[in-house]
């Protein structure tokens, strides 16, 4: 089973764990509803849509409310540290959590304690913590955008906000930045870099590029990176190899975006709606 860990922008939302479904543009978990705008709910919605089409297993979610104060994230970190050993997942995807190196390390130790080690995917705040901890190679897939790739490539930066200017965040620099991230052990086993061109890479170099269909507006739409990570997670949990799954996810995400005829004002749920159609039209 695929598990997804993240936060929702409602400080009254309690720590909740359970199976997740998608209904009427909302994520349902333990009788609670969360609208899908961007962030972890968008990642979950994309994974659910893909999972239904792929005919794969159910999805499990760990969620808590957090508006940036870190309190919900710390409840999640603590819960995972204490309870992960009781679960059996094939893939865990970590997403919007307040980056905290100490808590990250505790969760990683808890994963080492699990009977079967799941494949580990990290994006957003948890990926920042994974890089800062020096434990990035423990992960199977990171899914940074170009700004975040520059952060991974800058061995001194504690957050993308402090990435040094000479490490340019330009599209044509992606191969150099990928190589630099691996040189300093700040990348997962595989990278799926989201950008004008999407790159799939590992320590040996670039394994694939996806650059069509092109919709420049996708960059402006909040949540399109989240849906890409959700698609990759769903495909990997359906037993497709990580590099192949990452390339497929990039193609499906672009095609779903294309079907939505996006403008920079499009909201991500309009794209998520087209994921089953896009998946059907791309051989996998």
């Amino acid at each position, binding site marked *: 089973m695929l598990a997804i860990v993240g*936060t*929702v*922008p409602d400080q009254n939302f309690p720590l909740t*764990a359970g199976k997740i479904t998608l209904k009427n543009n909302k994520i349902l978990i333990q009788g609670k509803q969360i609208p899908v*705008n*961007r*962030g*972890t709910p968008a990642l979950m919605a994309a994974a659910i849509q893909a999972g239904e089409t792929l005919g794969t297993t159910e999805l499990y979610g760990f969620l808590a409310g*957090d*508006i*940036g*104060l*870190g*309190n919900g*994230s710390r409840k999640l970190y603590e*819960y995972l*540290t*204490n309870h992960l050993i*009781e679960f059996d997942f094939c893939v865990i995807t970590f997403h*919007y959590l*307040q*980056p*905290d*190196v*100490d808590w990250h*390390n*505790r969760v990683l*130790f808890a994963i*080492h*304690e699990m009977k079967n080690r799941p494949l580990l995917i990290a*994006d*957003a*705040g948890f990926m*920042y913590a994974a890089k*800062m*901890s*020096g434990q990035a190679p423990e992960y199977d897939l990171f899914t940074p*955008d170009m*700004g*975040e790739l520059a*952060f991974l490539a800058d061995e*001194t*930066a*504690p*957050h*993308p*906000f*402090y*990435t040094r*200017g000479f490490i340019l965040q330009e599209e044509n620099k992606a191969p150099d930045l990928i190589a630099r991230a691996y040189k300093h052990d700040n990348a997962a086993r595989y990278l799926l870099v989201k950008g004008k061109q999407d790159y799939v890479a590992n320590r040996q170099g670039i394994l694939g590029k996806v650059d069509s269909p092109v919709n420049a507006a996708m*960059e*402006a*739409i*909040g*949540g*399109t*990176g989240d849906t890409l990570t959700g698609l990759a997670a769903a495909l990997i949990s359906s037993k497709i190899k990580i590099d192949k799954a990452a390339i497929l996810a990039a193609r499906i995400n672009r095609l779903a975006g294309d079907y939505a005829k996006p*403008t*920079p*004002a499009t909201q991500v749920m309009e794209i998520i709606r087209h994921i089953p159609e896009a998946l059907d039209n791309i051989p996998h």
Partner: protein
Amino acid sequence: MSIFGFLKLKKGKKSQKYNQIKSNNPKSKGKFKAKFKDRGILVFEHTSEVIRAENVLKKISEINGWAIRVMGPPPEIRTGCDLVIEFSLIEKLNILRTLQKIGIKPLQTVPVTNPLLTPVDLFQTKDFGQYLMVRAANMKLTVEKETLKIVNISGGGCPDVPYLAQEMVGKHLTNDAPLPCDIGHTLCGYALQLAYEEIKHQCSL
């Protein structure tokens, strides 16, 4: 939390186990030296400011579950008094706003690991015709040029990003949208504030 009632928390046993794993795990010896990578330093002009800042930050740190400590400045810091405050760097925006409320403005806010690092100051602008997007660090803000309505916020990885988007998207850039520096809490929120100021500048507001 009621849904977890069936699961007993074994805190004592677990923390004992954690320490055991930590000390036994070969990976914990070298790489986990990265312990302080998510910490920042607040530099002040006067020691009296350090004391006042410590008092107020200790109170909110207890509520929010992060730690601060007063220490001597690292050698790279050549300004300010003989004491600095170490804090959770991610929550910089929240902490600076808290200090501002009591009239304290630190001379500098820098990462512990490299006090010479400065915030990103490069902006990337994309003109979509009807829309304008500005990126600062990992945050992107897009407005409709004619109406100045915020139509999208993307990028970022801290939990206040979805919250900021929820509160700002669909609102007018200057009339009714809240400022990221007022409702954001993290470095991503801080980056969004920079993008906000830059897009205002580019729209000549």
